[in-house]
């Protein structure tokens, strides 16, 4: 599949605000809280043949069929050695009226991140494709990568990797 999940807009915005932080392969990431629809526990995922490799499958969200994107696969990480744990959960994002679930290792907290704590994404040295990063927040000695939901879900980028 070469079509983008959603198009990525070129916008400049202030980045300070509330974020939902979560853990993936022992690193901390965050989505802007405004893009988060809800958090659900991991549930039986139906794999969809011939769909994009980062699509783990589809689940039933109260009668709606929504796709689940595997964030580890999205960032070319290996599957978790311990498999799914009780902490594994799905963050349902609402990006331009599309509901998409993101499977993550664990959700941490909702926290306020001030503009002053945010630095632009590093040009190298990250496991994550930096084009998906809004920035890097450094507060109380912890580094959190702020993800751009639009870009994470723009699968056309992956197709060309």
């Amino acid at each position, binding site marked *: 599949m070469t079509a983008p999940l959603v198009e990525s807009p070129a916008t400049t915005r202030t980045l300070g605000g509330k974020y939902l932080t979560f853990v993936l392969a022992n690193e901390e990431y965050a989505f802007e809280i405004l893009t988060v629809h809800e958090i659900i526990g991991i549930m039986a995922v*139906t794999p969809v043949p011939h769909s994009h490799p980062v699509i783990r499958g589809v689940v039933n969200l109260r009668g709606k069929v929504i796709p689940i994107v595997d964030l580890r696969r999205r960032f070319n990480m290996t599957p978790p050695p311990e498999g799914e744990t009780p902490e594994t959960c799905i963050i349902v994002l609402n990006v331009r009226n599309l509901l998409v679930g993101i499977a993550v290792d664990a959700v941490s907290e909702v926290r306020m991140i001030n503009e002053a704590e945010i630095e632009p994404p590093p040009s190298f040295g990250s496991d994550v494709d930096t084009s998906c990063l809004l920035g890097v927040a450094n507060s109380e000695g912890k580094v959190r990568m702020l993800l751009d939901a639009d870009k994470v879900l723009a699968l056309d980028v992956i197709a060309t990797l």
Partner: protein
Amino acid sequence: MATLTIDDAIAAFVACEPGDEAARRKLRERLWTLVADRSLASPIRTALADAIAVLDDPAEFKGAKEADGLEKVRQALEVAVDHAECGDRAVSEPEVPSVPKEFVPEAAVARASTMLLAIPDDADRSLIEDFIAEAREYLEGAEAALLRLESAPDDGEAINDVFRAFHTIKGTSSFLGLSAIAGFAHHAEDMLDRVRAGELAFAGQVPELSFRAVDLLKTLVAAIPQALAGHAPELPDEYEPLSHALSHPEEAAAPRARTVESEGGSAPEPSAADHAPDHAPVVMRAGTAASVPTADPLVKVRTDKLDRLVEMVGELVIAQTMLVQDGVVRDASNHHLAQKVRHADKIVRELQDLSLGLRMVPLKGAITKLARVVRDLATRSGKQITFTVAGEDTEVDRTLVDLLADPLLHMVRNAVDHGIETPSERLKAGKPAMGTVRLEASQAGDRVLVKLIDDGRGLQRDKIVAKAIEKGIITSAESMSDTEVFDLIFAPGFSTAEQVTEVSGRGVGMDVVRRNLMAMRGRTVISSKAGKGSVFTIELPLTLAITDGMIVRVGAERFIVPTAQIRRCFRPEPSAVFTAQGKGEMVQTAGEVLPVVRLHRALRVVGAQEGVDQGILMVVGDGNNRTAFLVDELLGQQQVVAKPLGDAIGRVQGLTGGAILGDGRVGLILDVDELVVASRGTSSATGVQAA
């Protein structure tokens, strides 16, 4: 105000200084009061009415013309005064200046200066959106009425319907500042008004001009959204010439041969005005036709809400089914519980019928357009065709009506272009010169049948075979039955998109048409007799809201196969399965040899049965596409509500969507036809290639 006299009117007239519009309006109101006064003699009232008519026409008082306008009013008033003074004495018929027969909206004048479909800045957008929808309805109605007029040119009610469409569009668009539309509709209305009055016969160029006027208005209305977005589109080239032709239908070019009425050769059709007296007078009949609005109050509901409702009721039905089948409920000892569940079940079923009915619409909408297509195609190819329709009130799910448009268009085009012969060929074959194409829609159980029947030459096996070989679809047709050969017209690459483009404006090949129908769980059947004609049948479910599905297990996964597409299932003998060189696995069953598609390979599922004789073969598809799918196990039938997999995933090859199964997990619904086609595309039927 019985005391008001003509003198009061004269006084009001004298008060009319040039440029004083308010004074003119005051005069007009006085005149109206006098006209309504029945104690005045009728010639006086007639003359006063003339004065009002002049005052009501703003064109009479535009700029420098104002003096002339006032002069006309003065003359009319003088006639009235003469009559009043002469009392009962006979007065010669008043010599009144020619009174404009009809008020020309100012818009019609403004239009000439600009050739854009412009919308004023202060336009009320929501009103304009309403207008677009309403104008479309009126134009559809006008088109249907014009088609009725083709066979019954003196149908007064139909003429009225066409007139009313133009009239209403003119009136409403003038309010909305859509001056280009108001101006054009005015010309069209004018011509139809003359037909209505018996001045002009519905013959010669008039029908053609009417059709073209409807088309042009449709184009203009369709361009409104663009204008609203701030890009006023240019008016079509035809705008000016057609406006002129509508005002002067008598001088339009020599009439073209007509589709239906050309029997007996087209006698020189004279200028219609000369012949008007020969035609039966226009009879105004009490309305009976479909255009009569219903008296029941209606509520507008957003379609997405309606869809959601139907979907939720579908879920309710499925939940109810699971409840009814639950072991505890079925346990004989729970007599009261079973009774209550049965009662709830009855209510849920009724609710289901009711909710499905909400979304049902008559096929009429999709069919009306076809009459026009037949007419245009026949005219172009010099054929004479009567097109009749039966069962257009048959109702189907709203979502299906739109999807039917392409298949119907293809069928009709096929029938007219390839089915019906030219008049001379028909006469030679001992048939009437006039061919017939008949469309029949009917409901059979929970399926809808749409048949297109023509009495043409029938499908020509030789030609189809030759074309299929030329296109490289087959190498030889030796072992093929007629049905198999006819089925080739649905093969990819057989029909080209260009053939349809000129009629429909969009190009879709016959193979895509069939694929779309299959995706809707429909099927197509062709039967044909050489020299006698053909019957194309489209069969569709009444609704897509609920699918009867067979749940099958493939490895650890479950898939849903629409029951309507399953012909039968069987467990094969090991010896019945063989491998034909280069053609992959085949199975011999009930006298036919079918290709085998191992679903676990096509769907990349691991852990499924490898031995064909260990699983179940499911025969699916029609005609040449009959194929046996290998699955591990049949888990049972269930009604499911089909849902899209979501825009984020998009369309996935081999799947039509998903549905929630009894345990709350999502099951995927197989796109049987696509899986079959994909398996044919690969040399060894091993799998569908990922996109």
